[in-house]
């Protein structure tokens, strides 16, 4: 296993996750870095929510973990979630929020709704979430 995916390891502005019980710590990491980068708390918590949904999606669909990084760009905070799915896996296109009484299918629609920009990177092996600050 790639050392970069070791559970809970913190390397500067990135942190890895491998199991569901890692998610709470990763959420705190994303929120705190986003606030430190200048996002209002409510906006930082939306970024945290979106990152959590992507991490859950990775755990649920790959049975493996991934890596989260947070950095700043001019006018924006960026959070990237990367996993081991093959290059080109993620198709473009926004997820649509299902009906209120639907039993599932909300995770990626929540990501699309709460972030200012959602894009893929690294040949589709990573999703980048941008929040204007």
């Amino acid at each position, binding site marked *: 296993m790639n050392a970069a995916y070791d559970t809970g390891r913190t390397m500067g502005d990135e942190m890895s996750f491998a199991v*569901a019980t890692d998610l709470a710590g990763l959420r705190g990491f994303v929120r705190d870095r986003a606030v430190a980068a200048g996002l209002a708390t409510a906006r930082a*918590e939306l970024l945290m929510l979106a990152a959590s949904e992507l991490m859950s999606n990775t755990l*649920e669909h790959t049975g493996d973990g991934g890596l989260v990084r947070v950095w700043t760009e001019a006018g924006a905070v960026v959070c990237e979630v990367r996993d081991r799915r093959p290059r080109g896996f993620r198709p473009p296109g926004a997820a649509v929020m299902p009906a*209120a009484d639907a*039993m599932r299918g909300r*995770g990626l629609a929540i990501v699309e709704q709460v972030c200012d920009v959602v894009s893929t990177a690294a040949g589709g092996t990573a999703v980048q979430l941008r929040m204007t600050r």
Partner: protein
Amino acid sequence: MSTVETAGRLVVRLSGECDMSCSDELAAALSAAIGRSPRTEVDLGGLRFLDSSGIHVLVTAHRDARARQAIMYVTHAAGVVATVLELTGVAALLAPPPQASGDRS
């Protein structure tokens, strides 16, 4: 998570953070409550985080309650928990019935 019986309903109080690591526990608690009482209030006042897996548990429990002619609703959502319920449209689905407005106090 705790369940208390009060004034003709069961109140399931959630605290902390609800994600895929605790959604099974939440599903079991709600299923038990709905099986015991015709009215179940899910008090979200102590909950700091709720994701889509928790929402799916709440929606499924709400559907199960309806199938049993029972009522299940949520109260006291705040912060990012209230936000995610609103933007998914689930806040309206799980709103207290009009006659339960006194439960909000």
